[in-house]
């Protein structure tokens, strides 16, 4: 079976802990063409949208959930919202947990709203990432 409205509420197990590194922060900032000195050096903070790197751990659980029958190349990002309780820094060890909030069936596509909660290993909330993805359904054979 493929994704349906009934998958709303599906919560995935927490992802493996992710350790934020200075090297990954610098790589990410460079990919944005951002030379802000706060993203460089030995103990940088991460650019706010670095949260997407960690959110992706949760998104990938959803995208690869065999029951949903999603194809990565058929997915486009519809909207994105981040709420930051504090910035991420090199050395932080964080855990992403993904939840499907809502599934809307459209002609030819499904709209999937999902939240990834990013927290410390102690459960301190750090960031919430709310996304909508559009998944283009395969034409009926």
């Amino acid at each position, binding site marked *: 079976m493929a994704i349906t409205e009934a998958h709303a509420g599906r919560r995935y197990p927490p992802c493996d802990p992710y350790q934020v590194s200075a090297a990954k922060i610098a790589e990410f900032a460079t990919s944005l063409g*951002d030379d802000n000195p706060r993203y460089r050096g030995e103990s940088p903070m991460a650019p706010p949208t670095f949260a997407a790197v960690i959110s992706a751990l949760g998104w990938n659980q959803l995208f690869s959930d065999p029951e949903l029958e999603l194809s990565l190349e058929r997915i486009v990002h519809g909207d994105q919202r981040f709420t930051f309780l504090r910035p991420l820094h090199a050395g932080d060890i964080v855990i992403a947990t993904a939840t499907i909030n809502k599934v809307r069936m459209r002609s030819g596509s499904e709209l999937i709203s999902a939240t990834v909660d990013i927290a410390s290993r102690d459960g301190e909330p750090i960031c919430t990432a709310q996304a909508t993805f559009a998944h283009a359904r395969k034409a009926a054979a």
Partner: protein
Amino acid sequence: MKATVVDGLEIGTTLPSLTVRFTRERLVRYAGASTDFNPIHYSEHFARQVGLPGVIAHGMLTMGTALRVVTNWVGDPSRVIAYAVRFNRPVVVPDDPDGVEVEFNASVSAIVGSLVTISIEATSNGQRVLGAARAEVDLGVRVPHRDHET
């Protein structure tokens, strides 16, 4: 740290704009850095197969680049407490050295206490590619502002 931005801030105050070029190289870099390996961001074959006009930029690349306007201005990126966008139109990135230009403009759209909302417009090939793009920054100090409600 960049200059303080509190004095004289009011609704409509514009931030310095930013123009960038998205090339295929940039997409490859962002794919690796972000771990978003959706092939529509590097393969013409997959992009066209799913009905796109060509290889498109990661929405998150546009979103992340747009926020540079805000963080360049505010200096300290930790001031950003919320950020949301809609991906209105795909940014098609041609396979040539020039790529495609994306222009970012931003202005203050709300001030409540120390919280300032910045609305961002992203334009490529004359089309708005982001919708409802808003970053909320906490300047940490109350903003002296004539529209400010006390």
